[in-house]
């Protein structure tokens, strides 16, 4: 709650941008990584998988699958 600018007056009818949003690029990057089956995002990332799991065309698979 440090950002008081987020406390818009009641008359404000807009939906301002999310202060904690992932950028569109981050979301698309995540998607592209999965769809291409390339190794996952940085460790700790949303689609980071363990050594024995891969994501291929959206399928969450074991490497031996």
């Amino acid at each position, binding site marked *: *709650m440090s950002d008081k600018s987020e406390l818009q007056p*009641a008359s404000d009818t*807009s939906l301002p941008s999310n*202060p904690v*949003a*992932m950028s569109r690029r981050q979301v698309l990057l*995540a998607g592209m990584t999965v769809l291409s089956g390339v190794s996952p995002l940085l460790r700790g990332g*949303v689609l980071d998988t363990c050594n024995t799991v891969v994501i291929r*065309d959206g399928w969450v698979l*074991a490497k031996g699958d």
Partner: protein
Amino acid sequence: MLFRSVEEFTRSGFRPRVCIVGTGPAGMSLALRLQERKIPCLLVEAGGYDFSATSQDFYRGEVIGDRYHKLHEARLRQFGGSSGHWTGWVCPLDDTDFDKRTYIPYSGWPIRAEDLLPYAPAADDLLEVKAHIPNRHVTQDIDYIQYRFSPPVRFGTKYRSHVEQSSAIGLLLNTPVLELVPGNGRIDSVKVSQGVEVRDIRVDHVCVCTGGIENSRLLLWSNARHAGSVVPQPATLGRYWMEHPVQTLADVVTTAKGYEKQFETYSPDKWLFAPSERAKRTYSIGGGHLWMRTHINEQTQAKELFHEAMCVAPDWSNRILKQFGKEYRCGGYVVSEFEQFPLPQNRVELDQNTDALGVPRSRLFWKKADTERKTALATARLLGEALIKEDIGRLRIRNYLLDGGDWPSDDQGGGWHHMGGTRMSDSAATGVVDKDCKVFGMSNLYIGGSSVFATGGHANPTYTIVKLALRMGDHLAAKLGAA
């Protein structure tokens, strides 16, 4: 003790110490607790014993943002409130839901999970459920969870005769509260409508328990009518409104038999999982529960999925080919109901349109953020890993999550759970009520219900609503000097 009019109540000589506005799970639980503590109270209900098209019309309002339920269908304006269409899901918030989580702005309650724990047995009794069943790890990142199910308890049906016969609980039906009338740092009276008449009911203490949207509406309107003297520090009033978004995240090829071996289940075609505490911390995501729903006796979807799996996972497909139609007989899908981070722009406001009594209708601004997409995507992936570990299936994440597309409009959208708007906090700068559910700056005004939630976790809110109401009852009893 049923009063047929405000006049009859006034003439009766019954002098309640607490006026409770609303008779849903929050209001009724509070009234029953106060009765136990020998504190007389008055329930003021806008509807009658049954809802009607006329009573529901008061809930109509506009929704701006994501697709959502019709507001006048989301709550019931009747004795017993929305327990009348409650599905009975009972689950406590996770302990860490009360924490300040660095990756969730505005998170953190001024109370701890332990503060509600003493009220669990009484809440279990009220809702007629057995003791909570702890989560069980499937992997380090995925837990198997079991909800408990109330019959469900319909508070209006269950407690009608009890309230009518009680000498400690008064009841006024068909008595909408139009506004709260402030005095000097307190509420002096509530202005109510009865037919064509408007009457004032003097109050000692008042607790507003009208629902997760109506609480904000009544306070916003009362504040507007009385130059901000009802909620003196309204920075967050109406804001940080939350739901539990409900979306289909993935499809699965799985074996129902495998699950029957692994897990107890409440239903033959559903299993519930959730990201573990470790997963939430590690990936900076919110909570969620994942329903694994299989299409039992529906092999068409399973075959289509299996054909696709043969292309991307030929070795696995060949391995299970002989089992298909036997062990591997189910296609299915994963629906998640997940935590929405509290954001100020998700809010309840007063509309220019008014209801039949001249009170502005609600206008709800509600939109899912990319943080919710991150939670959904991560939990789907983690569940996929759990299926591999258990060797009971494979999961395909839906494209919209992967390519950043729009949320599907054919999903349910939300869990019918209205939270926030009068959030609990340790400061008036960041909330409307304090740890006792008392409005900051007011000596006798309290709020009950899920509108006080600072964060919503993934658990269905009724159980927490009831525990908070019981705790508030004890607080008021102590304050008012009960035995």
